[in-house]
């Protein structure tokens, strides 16, 4: 397929189609719906050989995802906000069962008050639950990362579920140029799905048993180690993809922009990074040595890479599109802990909650704030 102008949601659906999932349980919620609507269209038109399950809730969507994957097929689902929150109970069950399910999250604020617009509270709130979380900035990155994510999650040294996080509306509903790979290319990159284990009368296994205090913790340690292993796999798969498709996003974990000689930098995830690029360019034109760190992988968290990327910085300002109420931005906490040994100044701003636009002005202010300490800032 050549380059086209396409809505990010539909582009994602095209990316998913190329990965040939067999079962797609889904439940509608704004702003995720365009993704599954596009998939429904493909299925009902006979263009995608898959079963869509019109479940009655997201709790069941997530459960059907588990069931289908356990039965031995590749799966996909998508959700947002309250939908992800309703899946919440099942998230650690999927990861604890080491099922490499892939799900898109079109990020949207959590109620109350109800808001259908973007922030990162839905997925970031789920950061503890053993799902790989890759965050994307553009339509192209959404397609490319979806394809990568299946390969990462299904790697037998990983075997963890993955979330593809894209900003609701701010990305999901945007039309822009993107290259949709050819099926043969993807087939060459992503092998057919071979479950490491499945429910099969030929070879009966028991999944999801009760673990006593003498074993539970070991399973969690194994999950955690698989997460750390995923740091490597994310990089490798990214590099392989870059080689084959000619498109790269930093090292797969972090993408650095004008960081070579930067003294101050801004760090964030998702679409705000795009606007930040423009801000960095402008400040550079003004002679300011500033740069940008885009975090692609929130979990596993690339601590080593971040230490490396920031070692020559004087200041870093972290933009959180979510807040751990009663404390601070969760990304800020993560970053400060990672860089605990360093001496750089790290500021924090909460921005873009419930669809509040994150403007150039905001990000400029956030970057320039690094001249002083600023931990509890709000970009209103």
């Amino acid at each position: 397929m050549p380059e086209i102008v396409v809505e990010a949601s539909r582009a994602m659906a095209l990316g998913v189609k190329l990965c040939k999932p067999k079962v797609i349980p889904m439940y509608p919620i704004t702003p995720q719906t365009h993704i599954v609507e596009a998939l429904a269209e493909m299925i009902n038109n006979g263009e995608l050989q898959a079963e869509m399950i019109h479940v009655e809730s997201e709790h069941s969507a997530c459960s059907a995802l588990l069931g289908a994957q356990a039965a031995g097929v590749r799966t996909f689902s998508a959700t947002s906000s309250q939908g992800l929150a309703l899946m919440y109970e099942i998230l650690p069950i999927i990861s604890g069962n080491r099922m490499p399910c892939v799900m898109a999250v079109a990020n949207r604020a959590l109620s109350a008050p109800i808001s259908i617009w973007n922030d990162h509270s839905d997925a970031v709130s789920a950061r503890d639950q053993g799902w790989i979380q890759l965050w994307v900035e553009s339509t192209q990155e959404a397609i490319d990362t979806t394809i990568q994510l299946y390969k990462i999650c299904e790697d037998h040294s990983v075997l963890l579920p993955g979330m593809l996080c894209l900003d609701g509306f701010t990305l999901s509903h945007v039309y822009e140029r993107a290259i949709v790979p050819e099926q043969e290319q993807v087939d060459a990159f992503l092998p057919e799905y071979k479950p490491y284990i499945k429910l099969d009368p030929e070879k009966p296994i028991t999944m999801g048993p009760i673990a006593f205090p003498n074993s539970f913790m070991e399973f969690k340690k194994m999950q955690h180690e698989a997460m750390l292993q995923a740091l490597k796999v994310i990089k490798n798969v990214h590099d392989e993809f870059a080689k084959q498709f000619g498109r790269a996003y930093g090292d797969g974990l972090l993408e650095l922009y004008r960081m070579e000689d930067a003294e101050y930098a801004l760090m964030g995830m998702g679409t705000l990074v795009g606007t930040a690029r423009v801000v960095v360019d402008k400040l550079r034109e003004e002679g300011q040595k500033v740069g940008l760190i885009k975090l692609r992988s929130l979990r596993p968290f690339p601590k080593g890479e971040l230490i490396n990327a920031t070692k020559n910085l004087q200041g870093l300002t972290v933009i959180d599109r979510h807040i751990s109420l009663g404390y601070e931005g969760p990304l800020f906490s993560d970053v400060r802990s990672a860089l605990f040994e360093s001496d750089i100044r790290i500021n924090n701003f909460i921005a873009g909650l419930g669809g509040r636009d994150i403007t150039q002005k905001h990000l400029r202010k956030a970057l320039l704030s690094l001249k002083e300490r600023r931990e509890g800032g709000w970009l209103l």
Partner: protein
Amino acid sequence: MAEKNTKKIEFTLGAVIREPGSTIKNKTGGWRAMRPVLDQSKCVRCGTCWMYCPEGAIKKDEKGNFVIDYDYCKGCGICANECPVKAIKMELEKK
């Protein structure tokens, strides 16, 4: 937990158990306070006891006799209660 089993556990990916029916390693006969004793001479081989045993602890042997597997019998007394000819008696377990 409270059981003697202290052998090293093997940890599988995702806690999958690959050995079907492996609870047979757990000899629940140790739970028994009362012991069912089957009098083959009274038994009419109706299979009622076999059918109702919650433990699957009654089996038909080659000769067609119903025998109790004390490795698993928990001594609930259902077999004795249900036997139409009262061929099973519950006795106090002593060890």
